[in-house]
């Protein structure tokens, strides 16, 4: 994949914009139909991990977002008997052209968060500010222009493409719906998009079943790119693909991100893929963000026991190759039900260092570094968790979580999107700044 990237930024789509990198199309060798076409493959330049631009403005800001799905009783009168608290108070920012990774186990609410950002779900409460405008409550009619700016890539390329529509119709549909181009200009644009994602532009009249999984995912990406969105929500974009194909698709996503300055919300359970793609990562557990930090901090110095356990559970081939397996932290049991989550800290039922306070008081998302927030009473690096809860004096409770009349609670701006300039230093137990 040798196309130029980064240096030639795009002007917003004029009717016949040719935004193809002129030198070389992305490898067009992937084609089960014409196996013979694969004759020789030039060595491919790989991609290093994405880097963040520290000065980029936030394009997306999510504040205290909640999504509760009602649980109905069975029988004729279906009363609401409870709520699945799929997402419960999530806040984050995504900078222009940046990428935020959402990771966690199945059922942690990461996909639901992604779907609220694209407004496939209407959030129960909270705000989603996209490009300076709150989109969390806007009507279906007002949503239509938004769809040009925010698009989604789905997990399963086999079910997200209509089998009865040709690829040209699938990719061209957004152009027709939004009346961006006159009808006769749609086909050239579709072919251009096919070329951008590394497919043969002549294949626009083929149907999805004629393509392999990796190629279908490329079609899904082309469809998402059609309207030149500013934000792409990618929900497990590579987990349904073979290993060798995964890397192709990740590199393609990095290419289009750099080329068109698209911001990503990247939802995945694969911690290694997220590490490669996202300069900033939020770890979710049972509908809440338990730790959010930049890549190096999160992967090298995680402070939340859940993040530590997740990372230790990933089998790592290079680590094993250098010699020695890492010691795994065993998490017992399964994720509790989000209908009736545990009191206090939601992770406490599986947490290796939980104490009395964890059942009583919910730990706030506390900023403990320049770009590092963690929600744990005993936040600390692996093996260096403090004996006494660091949050107790801030919350005005004693070490067991019972209210402490002598203490004055400090108001911490923890669950705000983004980071503040001052934070709580765990070592010195005072506020610190850069």
């Amino acid at each position: 994949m040798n196309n130029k990237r980064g240096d030639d930024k795009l002007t917003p789509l004029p009717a016949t914009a040719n935004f193809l990198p002129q030198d070389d199309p992305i490898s067009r060798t992937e084609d089960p139909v014409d196996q013979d076409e694969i004759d020789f493959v030039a060595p491919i330049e790989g991609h290093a991990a994405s880097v963040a631009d520290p000065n980029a403005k936030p394009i997306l800001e999510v504040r205290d977002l909640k999504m509760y799905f009602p649980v109905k009783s069975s029988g004729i009168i279906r009363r609401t008997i409870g709520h699945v608290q799929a997402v419960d108070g999530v806040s984050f920012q995504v900078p222009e052209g940046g990428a935020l990774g959402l990771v966690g186990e199945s059922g942690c609410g990461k996909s639901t968060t992604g779907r609220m950002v694209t407004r496939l779900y209407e959030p129960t409460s909270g705000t989603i500010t996209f490009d300076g405008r709150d989109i969390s409550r806007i009507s279906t009619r007002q949503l239509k222009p938004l769809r040009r700016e925010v698009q989604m890539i789905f997990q399963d390329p086999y079910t997200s493409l209509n089998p009865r529509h040709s690829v040209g119709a699938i990719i061209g549909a957004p152009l027709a719906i939004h009346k961006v181009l006159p009808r006769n200009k749609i086909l050239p644009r579709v072919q251009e998009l096919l070329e951008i994602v590394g497919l043969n532009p002549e294949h626009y009249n083929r149907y999805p079943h004629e393509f392999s999984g990796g190629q279908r995912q490329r079609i899904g990406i082309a469809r998402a790119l059609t309207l030149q969105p500013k934000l792409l929500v990618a929900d497990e974009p590579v987990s349904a693909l073979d290993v060798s194909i995964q890397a192709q698709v990740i590199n393609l996503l990095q290419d289009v991100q750099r080329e068109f300055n698209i911001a990503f919300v990247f939802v995945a359970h694969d911690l290694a893929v997220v590490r490669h793609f996202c300069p900033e990562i939020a770890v979710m557990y049972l509908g809440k963000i338990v730790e959010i930090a930049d890549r190096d901090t999160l992967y090298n110095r995680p402070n939340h026991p859940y993040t530590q356990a997740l990372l230790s559970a990933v089998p790592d081939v290079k680590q094993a190759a250098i010699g020695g397996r890492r010691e795994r932290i065993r998490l017992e049991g399964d994720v509790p039900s989000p209908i009736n989550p545990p009191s206090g800290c939601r992770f406490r039922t599986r947490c290796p260092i939980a104490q009395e306070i964890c059942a009583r008081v919910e730990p706030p998302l506390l900023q403990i570094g320049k770009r590092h927030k963690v929600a744990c009473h005993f936040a600390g690096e692996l093996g260096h968790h403090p004996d006494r809860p660091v949050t107790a004096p801030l919350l005005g409770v004693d070490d067991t979580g019972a209210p402490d009349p002598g203490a004055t609670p400090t108001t911490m701006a923890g669950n705000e999107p983004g980071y503040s300039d001052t934070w709580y230093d765990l070592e010195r137990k005072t506020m610190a700044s850069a």
Partner: protein
Amino acid sequence: MAFLSVRDLKVHFPTVDGIVKATDGLSFDLEKGKTLGIVGESGSGKSVSSSAILGLHRKTSAMVSGEILLDGTDLLKLSDEQMRRRRGKDVAMIFQDPLSAMHPYYTVGNQVAEAYRVHHNVSKKVAKARAVEMLDRVGIPQPDRRVDDYPHQFSGGMRQRAMIAMGLINNPSLLIADEPTTALDVTVQAQILDLLQDLQKEFESAVIIITHDLGVIAEMADDVLVMYAGRAVEYGSGNEILTHPEMPYTWGLLSSVPDVTGDTEARLIPIPGNPPSLLNPPSGCAFHPRCAHRDKVPGDLCVTTLPELAPGTRTETHLKRCHLANPDVVYEQEILPEIAPELVEEKQA
């Protein structure tokens, strides 16, 4: 002679379009208490080969040839009835997706106990007690209560545990695990892998673990077999293959997966193109259309001649199927700096 010895195993499926050579001449050995990891992409023949060991291919639809010697007996020469008596008792399998591998209408206990009753002439009560014991062994809480649950009442990880209980209830000497953790979350995957290792130690079983995840291979396997287009392309001890791979396809697998430690400067280099069609595989080395190193081989050798699975440059037991004369040098100089720059720096320092 090894406990399990597979020689020149071929599984061919005749179709209207021609013969699909899903497995084409596979040989390997496996000792008791050891784990063999088979890696490859979808369609590389790893699952088809292991189903052949269990005798799961219909004689009318598949042509299976070669030898599968389990403890000296050729499984391919057994009658259907003889094979049926061994299946589940000597050789057992754990399937990838426990939800579709279990019957939704029967309780978990019923299904686990059935695996026992098929091979032991015992009452239902005894079999159920044995099932409870087994569910307890694989770490299902309150097994005496959960034994009467249906599969949908179990979580994904618990279903996979129940599958393992079903597979191990007869103490099989050979256990085949086909992508046992692919459908699971990492934390649950870690639990299941630990469990498999513990049980293997306890029962001294030989285990074949099939996966596309090199990380799982690195943690579990003593020996590794890399498959591509129905053939073994690299075979040797796990440590050897992961630290000194000598076949460009293995390099491709290693460099196309990011990791959670390593240097973030490491590049993600995909293997171009798609896995080949097994109906009409490429001539010569099946990997040559996707191989970035074939210009290092003189002439058209890669296109015309299928390389032998032969010892590479390091040890007699590390086999590779490639024409490259100096894969060790190419790996050190070209591949390693890309995928693990930190290792190269360490070496230079």
